[in-house]
């Protein structure tokens, strides 16, 4: 692997950039692997990288039905934070945030992690109580998250409208300074390049069509559009398509897949310094390095794999953005797109073993999977390597839907009384 650096860039420039090698080879499937990851998104590629890097399992294939990073990895609003309420969630997401820090150097690939701060707005008394509860829990969990008055919030994010006359006035905000954004494509490419350098096969245009199990029911390999591939360890990290893959192993899952839209404005000079989220008004926004305002919209109400959302969702999202940030009303929407988000009954992920021996799963991240990319990859790798979950992902098992030990962050945010 050619090491990336200002020097290599300079050296290659002198030869007209003619001799840059492939960042990762376009591998063809081998008959068998020690481990297979289904799904070439950030989570799956990360899992492959950590399997090779931390657990010495290098004979690994990542199977991607399209092009790597083409699913939710390349379709999200790249928000990174860990200020979750419950201990389980806080530990899970903070594990990821710690890995984000320094990931560029570890991968020798600039994934442009920008610690711009993530600010969550409180618009009513109930929001205040809820965010205070988060802040207090985060503080005792060692997760940074601080309370800002409306004036402090505006100082941190000048475009914010804090007029008390607003339909949803800002009563304060919770700020996690370590939160921010990263360049989504680079995360997938960086992991792919680093994993390939350790011997991992990145196999694109290879859709899984079946899961083969032995007499005892354990996994022995996967059928694909490019032939049968044997492996006794298969990790499924297929986001919106997880239910489909699990059916191949005879498993029904507590998942539903919904369209989620996002959009960007035309690029403008730096104007928006951080990430702002408002659950009450249903809008969140940041500005990319390229200058586009990156805006997350809501999910459509019905199950769909069409990656196609409705106009009224975008109408509501932009109305909300214009209420919180009235100076952007004349800005223009440049591009919209849709992803497929897999949602569990408690809106927390499922990350661990399945009832089928040798079959592991990482799914149910809903609208918030990007932020967890390095953590999810690392923990899926750990679970596959040891055939048992790490203590951080142990609570995110399938059994919780049977025994009732749900991790329901959304419910804990509760309803307005």
């Amino acid at each position: 692997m050619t090491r990336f650096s200002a020097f290599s860039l300079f050296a290659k420039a002198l030869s007209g950039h003619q001799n840059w090698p492939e960042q990762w080879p376009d591998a063809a499937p081998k008959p068998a692997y020690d481990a297979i990851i289904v799904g070439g998104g950030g989570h799956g590629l990360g899992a492959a990288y950590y399997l090779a890097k931390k657990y010495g399992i290098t004979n690994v294939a990542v199977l991607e039905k399209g092009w790597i990073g083409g699913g939710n990895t390349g379709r999200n609003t790249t928000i990174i934070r860990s200020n979750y309420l419950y201990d389980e969630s806080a530990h899970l997401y903070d594990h990821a945030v710690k890995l984000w820090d320094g990931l560029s150097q570890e991968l020798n690939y600039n994934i442009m992690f920008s610690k711009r701060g993530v600010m969550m707005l409180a618009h009513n008394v109930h929001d205040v109580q809820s965010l205070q509860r988060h802040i207090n829990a985060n503080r005792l969990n060692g997760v940074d998250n601080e309370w800002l008055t409306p004036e402090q919030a505006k100082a941190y994010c000048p475009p914010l409208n804090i007029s008390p006359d607003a339909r949803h006035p800002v009563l304060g905000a919770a700020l996690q300074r370590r939160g921010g954004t990263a360049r989504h494509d680079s995360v997938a490419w960086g992991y792919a390049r680093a994993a390939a350098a350790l011997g991992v096969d990145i196999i694109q245009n290879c859709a899984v069509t079946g899961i083969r199990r032995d007499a005892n029911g354990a996994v022995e390999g996967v059928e694909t559009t490019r032939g049968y591939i044997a492996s006794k360890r298969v990790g499924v990290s297929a986001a919106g398509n997880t239910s489909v893959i699990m059916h191949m192993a005879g498993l029904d899952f507590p998942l539903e897949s919904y369209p989620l839209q996002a959009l960007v404005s035309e690029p403008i000079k730096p104007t928006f310094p951080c990430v702002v989220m408002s659950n009450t008004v249903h809008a969140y926004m940041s500005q990319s390095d390229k200058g586009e305002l990156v805006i997350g919209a809501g999910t459509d109400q019905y199950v769909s794999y069409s990656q196609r959302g409705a106009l009224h969702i975008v109408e509501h999202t932009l109305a909300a953005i214009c209420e919180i940030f009235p100076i952007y009303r004349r800005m223009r929407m440049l591009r919209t797109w849709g992803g497929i988000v897999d949602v569990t009954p408690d809106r927390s992920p499922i990350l661990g073993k399945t009832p089928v021996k040798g079959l592991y799963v990482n799914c149910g991240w809903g609208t918030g999977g990007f932020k967890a990319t390095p953590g999810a990859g690392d923990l899926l790798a750990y679970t596959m390597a040891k055939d048992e979950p790490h203590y951080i992902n142990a609570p995110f098992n399938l059994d919780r839907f049977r025994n009732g030990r749900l991790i329901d962050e959304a419910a804990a945010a509760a309803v307005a009384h």
Partner: protein
Amino acid sequence: MTGFRLETGGRVDRSQPVRFHFDGKTFQGFAGDSLASALLANGVMLFGRSFKYHRPRGLVAAGSEEPNALISVNRGLGRFTPNLRATGVEIHNGLKAFSQNRWPSLEMDFGAINDRLGMFLPAGFYNKTFMWPRSFWDKVYEPAIRKMAGLGDAPTAEDPDVYASTYAHCDLLIIGAGPAGIDAALGSMDSNKRIILMDEQDELGGGALADPSLWPWLERSVKALSDAPNVTILTRTTAFGYYHDNFIGAVQRLIDHLPEIEDMPREKLWRIRADEVVLAQGAIERPIVFGGNDTPGVMLSSAAKVYANRFGVAVGKALALMASHDSGWHDMFALAKAGVGISAIIDVRESVDSALMHEADRLGITVYLNHGVVGVNGRHGVRSVDICDYGNQQVRRIDTDALLMAGGWTPSVHLWSHSKGSLKWRDDLGAYVPDQPNENVVCVGGCSGDWDFGKGAIIDMLPTPKDQSRIKAFVDFQNDVTAKDIKLAVREGFRSIEHIKRYTTNGMATDQGKTSNLNGLQIASSALNQPVPDIGLTSFRPPYTPQTFGALAGHAKGALFQPTRTTNIDSWAQAHGAVFELVAQWRRARYFPKPNENMHAAVNRECIAVRSSLGIFDASTLGKIEVVGPDAAEFLNRMYTNPWKALEPGRCRYGLLLKEDGFITDDGVSARLAHDRFHLTTTTGGAARVLNMMEDYLQTEWPDLDVWLTSTTEQYAVIALQGPNARKVLEPLVEGIDLSAEAFPHMAIREGRICGIETRLFRVSFTGELGFEINVPTAYGRAVWEQLMAQGAQYDITPYGTEAMHVLRAEKGFIIVGQDTDGTITPFDAGLDWAVGKKKPDFVGKRSMARPDIVAPGRKQLVGLLTDDPHIVLQEGAQIVADPNQPIPMTMIGHVTSSYWSETLGRSIAMALVAGGHDMTGDTLHIPMPGKTHTAKVSGVVFYDPKGARLNV
């Protein structure tokens, strides 16, 4: 000719001069000019700077596909708009436009240093560096990158303009009013179909506007369509998105072209449902890729024709054409006819149709076949071009001040693709054209690949004797993506066109690849040595062109953003200085401060008033559901945790509602009015949710039950009259109800009249005091309230708000669902075992309460908390630990759900959810807050009048 304005021709009104400003300089154009044509007429070639290399750029096109000429328009405070295309801005007197992305000036831009460093900034360079030293990323590199990136400046003040929106329905929607679209409209005009014909330009005609021979036809057609009652014509209207089931989003621009901003919406969002859609969006000409093809003065040949024939402007005085397609030749002939000076025609093909040769010969135009441009001289404008004879590799120089490109055509299949129609590749056109539709839609004219522009050769880029890796041959002008960037991406293993697009950013600029996608595909195709269809095509997504946030938000602005629900008594509260809070969609009075009273003082006063004499509270927002029918009691028995069948008419009962997962979702006091009629109440925020949940069970699980539900939330205004003197105030006002304790006990309901108005009078209490809740028809709520205020004056009746209500109920240990419960709490956790019918075989949520984790020890349970220092009021949301000295991360065993100062008790009180809390009474717990750790003892939740003696009076 004077300057670049032709003596004659064009559709501009030469009798109406228009003065406008660009970068502070004043220019004159004519009514009908676009900013682009008007500046060209004044000899302006330089319009902007490119995104990455800050290279000087001029016009490439004449329409909405223009990638280079992005400008800002400033119409005064809050009316600054960046990134507009000069080709789409209509000039008006006083227009103030500015170039972008340059400093200090358009001619002299320091950012152009990037151009010199270009060789070190290939595609994806940012992935490969800026990583050391690590700390520099946040502090140095990223801020620098951000400063360089971006195009125009951001608006800085709130936009004072308003926007409108509407739905519309039609039988036939025609998008694009060029000849094909107009023909489609004429063809259906005589049917009784409702037709909408829309076009993004300011007048109908599309391509015909640049072809004077069609103007008589155009005039006749437009007149016919305008006169047809069933045809709606929308100009300046862009169909930006094609959604499910023939639902099209379009934005109409209403005032930006007017010199004076009138009192009307700036833009209007059209949400159109059409039975049938005809797409007639035409085709976009392709540039040709060669070194220097981005020099100002190098533009599409069709654009030059538009400027000459539609606007009467010559783009140069000696035009040269670089063609790979016949259409360019026809444009040159038209330009010559319009009186524009022609220098030469260069065509990469070895031979062309003899008719073209003869016409060129007739017009005396020098022709160079099998030649290609290998160099463009001039930085801020074309001075001359070097062309290479591919036969003998001889290079010669041709003097010209404008080089036109004719690289063939790309059908505009954007909306077709939004609608999920499939595409097929046509080698002869070198383009994708519509194949199978997914909706009731057809493509006609150019966007279907059906045009009469002649034929052409499909090339990726012009051959050149120079080292390809050293020349900047642009594919995406705005994003500065060159052919070698695309080749580099392929070299680095990016094979999918989506990868190539994302790695190079080709086609991701504000023109969304209208002029660059196909050239990018062709170059990737040869680099990969695969046919184009095997590489795929990046998917088109809405919007077709960028659309204003405000337009998409429509009329949802300010007060119209979302309804704020108010009660009939709200106006009284407002008039009496109430401070409000927002709860769900409602606005509720939080407290009623007297002059120089803060919230604390007001709430204390309100609470004491209720305990000592009389308080009055607007409870109208409580949800209400009328449950009627022979099976009403049976239905409630199945929904609620507690039994309902034995409840006597005239009596009330507290109802606790779970979701099927066993967790508390709502509660409220409900009354039985008759054997088959109940009056339910729900929480304010839960009203709609509860009704929907009950309808769900009723309709889909128990359709056999004869019972019906009606929301009566807004039928009644509800006034809570609470305090020892409540009965005394009511007595003189109420008719037909014996208010005595014996006749009308706690938790009962009576029907009668108050102040002459029929009422459902509840004797209930959320305060622990003698209390009544007076339900009257909403319209009379305020009037009855005022009567009660008058009658209660002798007892110093005190209006109280939600804050005092919270304190009063907390003193009594009454929970608020959503505050003391959080969607993970069972009745047992909340200490409401008494509200669960043990003998009932089933009710919604019962089974879930038997799940292993729900019966396991250590669940969070609701308890009271009394701080050791009675003056400390804990923060709601504060976390609770058993051992304050443990290291972080600490083990948290619970959190504070409600916490208040109780003036009545002269100390603070709190409720908390604590793991195993029900067995901890008396234990000391710790609440670590920044700077100080508080201690508190676990208690019961009823802090005041535990025996409930004050109720039984």
